[in-house]
């Protein structure tokens, strides 16, 4: 009846695991109680959960990412604390629990923080940057959000029911096979990753089509803002890379569920095939995470230097070059596999080549700032912090590309990829969050707490990861639960202090958000253009109307909004307004997400009747949406006119950014 699910699945085995489970349960109950007490279920359902408005979906994506960031960071803090105390002792975490934590930390940070964060930014910004009123496939967008949320929910519920995978975030066989890992942990990993990966692949298709097909008239490819270019390249990578991960995870699932032999040691299976398939996705994924941040930096640098971006075309070409190069270097993630020297030489040399277009990009930003009037706002601080620290990450990457060097699989590697992904991706998302927050909500984020958050993050980052570089040189392997070398402990204690600084950074971001909501009247941006922006998203109201643009603008070059302001025009106001057709809300996306959660949960615990219910539910949700013939509504011209005349138009070139 309940498959493998018994009372033993509850975490009675450890006080710490029980504490985590209780926190999750009480947090969910608390949110449910709060919404009920406020009587906001109807509002939440009609205005947010079922919305097909890309801005709302974007805000929900970013909210998911920030919540999961807290969970992923708690995992990190627990690991740092364990390693700080585990000299010649077991520390406070048993090995199996420690392994779960490093697996869930990485899985969460990649699939449920970084991806939702960048997709959220795409949603809020890209349609407005290209002058579109909606995405190409609005329902698919909602479905992707709820698939991702279902995956995140699976990782969270694994805290309460059963255990998560101990096989690392890449779940390498043979350890992840049923023979060595008969528990449900790896199944939790497989299903969470599958749901999220399917959502990400479809999101890539959605934005790819939107950018190719729905640009404002006159906007040629070489006039698109750099964030849109970065999004386009990211989408191409998503479309080509994610299928490989889906196939790898699905074949691993077949090995585990049906006793097949794709990646087993015996019966003709090949472990390295899994590793190769995984990294065919995994390496492009690094750029899926980093390119959107590069796009944010380009926008932020241009806006806060008050100049057109330097070398627009070379930045576009380097973004495209990074996109293609990122597809030819996947073997450098397993240089120690034992391939021949010709193979290793090819992939070892291809990897540092990416430094060339990356350097072009960085020089583009530096030359934009040179002789510009740089305003040191919070997004700009994150950008500058990124440029300085990312150079170190790039250098250490070149070192890791040397095949025979003896630091693969040490904490040097851990430090290296955190050095790429914290400044290279997360700082970019934070910069984008600070930069476009007024776009989404109509008021700025408070500066003082933003600065404090930045300093806490960058100091914490350096303290946490520079010691790991040194430890890597000293030979400390990654993922170590206990160790016997007293020389390592001081460095690990410093790294622990770094994690505490980052904790402050997260708290400061929360304080900033709370303080900004409280002072929202003082921080309001009635003109909708708080930073004296250059690209089209600032031509709409902040927050934008459901249809974004009452009149779709004509574009004649890059930075069209800047050109309009220079010409003395305000937001375009036509003599006559027209009806606008927009997609209706749909509950099918939420149902699809909920049902895929039920399906995946049932598959994990092998409750076959429940899996059948979930599968039927997924099918029914998709079918009901497919057969809705009138899934759109018309906003009459009079209503559009009323909304537009309520808007305070930006006097050209008057609005200034606070410094």
């Amino acid at each position, binding site marked *: 009846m309940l498959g493998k699910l018994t009372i033993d699945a509850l975490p009675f085995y450890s006080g710490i695991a029980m504490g985590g489970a209780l926190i999750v349960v009480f947090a969910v109950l608390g949110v449910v109680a709060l919404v009920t007490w406020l009587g906001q279920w109807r509002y939440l359902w009609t205005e947010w959960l079922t919305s097909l408005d890309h801005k709302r979906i974007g805000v929900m994506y970013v909210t998911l990412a920030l919540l999961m960031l807290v969970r992923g960071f708690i995992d990190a803090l627990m690991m740092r604390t364990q390693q700080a105390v585990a000299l010649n002792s077991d520390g406070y975490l048993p090995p199996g629990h420690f392994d779960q934590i490093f697996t869930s930390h990485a899985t969460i940070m990649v699939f449920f923080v970084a991806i939702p964060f960048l997709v959220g930014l795409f949603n809020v910004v890209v349609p407005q940057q290209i002058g579109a009123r909606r995405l190409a496939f609005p329902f698919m967008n909602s479905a992707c959000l709820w698939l991702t949320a279902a995956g995140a929910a699976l990782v969270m519920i694994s805290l309460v029911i059963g255990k998560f995978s101990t096989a690392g975030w890449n779940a390498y066989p043979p350890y992840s096979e049923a023979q060595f890992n008969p528990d449900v942990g790896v199944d939790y990993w497989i299903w969470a990753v599958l749901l999220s990966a399917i959502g990400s692949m479809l999101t890539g298709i959605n934005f790819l089509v939107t950018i*190719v*097909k*729905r*640009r*404002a*008239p*006159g*906007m*040629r*490819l070489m006039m698109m803002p750099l964030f849109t270019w970065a999004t386009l390249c990211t989408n*191409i990578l998503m479309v*080509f890379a994610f299928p*490989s991960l889906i196939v790898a995870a699905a074949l691993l699932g077949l090995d585990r569920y049906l006793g097949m032999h794709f990646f087993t040691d015996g019966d003709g299976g*090949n472990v*390295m*095939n899994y590793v*190769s*398939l995984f990294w*065919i996705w995994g390496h492009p994924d690094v750029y899926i995470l980093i390119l959107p941040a590069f796009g944010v930096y380009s926008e932020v640098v241009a806006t806060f230097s008050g100049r057109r971006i330097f070398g627009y075309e070379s930045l576009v070409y380097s973004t495209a070059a990074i996109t293609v190069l990122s*597809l*030819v270097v*996947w*073997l450098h993630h397993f240089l120690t*596999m*034992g*391939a*021949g020297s*010709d*193979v290793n030489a090819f992939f070892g040399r291809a990897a540092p080549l990416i430094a060339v277009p990356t350097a072009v990009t960085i020089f583009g930003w530096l030359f934009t700032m040179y002789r510009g009037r740089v305003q040191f706002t919070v997004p700009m601080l994150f950008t500058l912090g990124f440029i300085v620290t990312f150079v170190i990450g790039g250098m250490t990457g070149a070192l890791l590309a040397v095949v025979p060097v003896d630091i693969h699989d040490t904490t040097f590697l851990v430090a290296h990829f955190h050095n790429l992904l914290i400044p290279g991706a997360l700082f970019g998302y934070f910069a984008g969050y600070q930069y476009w927050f007024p776009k989404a909500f109509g008021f700025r984020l408070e500066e003082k707490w933003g600065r404090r958050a930045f300093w806490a993050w960058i100091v914490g980052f350096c303290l946490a990861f520079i010691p790991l570089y040194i430890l890597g040189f000293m030979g400390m392997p990654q993922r170590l639960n206990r160790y016997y070398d007293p020389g390592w402990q001081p460095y690990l204690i410093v790294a622990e202090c770094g994690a505490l600084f980052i904790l402050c950074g997260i708290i400061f971001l929360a304080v900033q958000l709370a303080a900004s909501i409280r002072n929202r009247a003082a921080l309001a941006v009635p003109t909708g253009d708080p930073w004296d922006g250059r690209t089209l998203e600032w031509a709409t109201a902040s927050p934008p109307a459901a249809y974004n643009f009452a009149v779709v603008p004509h574009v004649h070059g890059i930075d069209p909004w800047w050109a309009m302001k220079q010409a003395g025009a305000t937001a375009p106001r036509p003599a006559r307004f027209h009806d606008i057709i927009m997609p209706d809300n749909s509950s099918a996306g939420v149902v699809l997400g909920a049902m895929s959660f039920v399906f995946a949960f049932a598959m994990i615990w092998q409750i076959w009747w429940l899996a059948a219910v979930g599968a039927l539910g997924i099918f029914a949700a998709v079918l009901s949406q497919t057969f809705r013939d009138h899934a759109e509504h018309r906003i009459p011209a009079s209503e559009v006119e009323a909304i537009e005349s309520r808007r305070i138009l930006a006097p050209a070139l008057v609005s200034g950014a606070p410094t």
Partner: protein
Amino acid sequence: MAAPPRLSKMPISPRRRQSTIKGYLVGVVLALVLTAIPFGLVATRALRPIQIFVVIGIAAIAQAVVHLRYFLHLDLKPSSQNKLIALCFAGVVLFILFGGTLWIMFNLNYRKM
């Protein structure tokens, strides 16, 4: 490349609707046949293993072509230049990924023999 004009919602004429449905049905049948052949071969072991591999490979490529032709409506007419560029790029990427994987795996196999 100029941004294309917005597509207006045009009612589909009965004739076009019929031809579309026919296209999809042909596609589904072909896809099913091309799926059945490899499964059948593996189940019955009618050929030698190496021959089965080759047939599976050919059926997989044909399957991809069927999907592109009948479900994504890709053709080689000059009017669909955008699609052609996308297809060429996909070809390059697939060459890199498949060719690279084969190279890596055969190299490893050779060294581990």
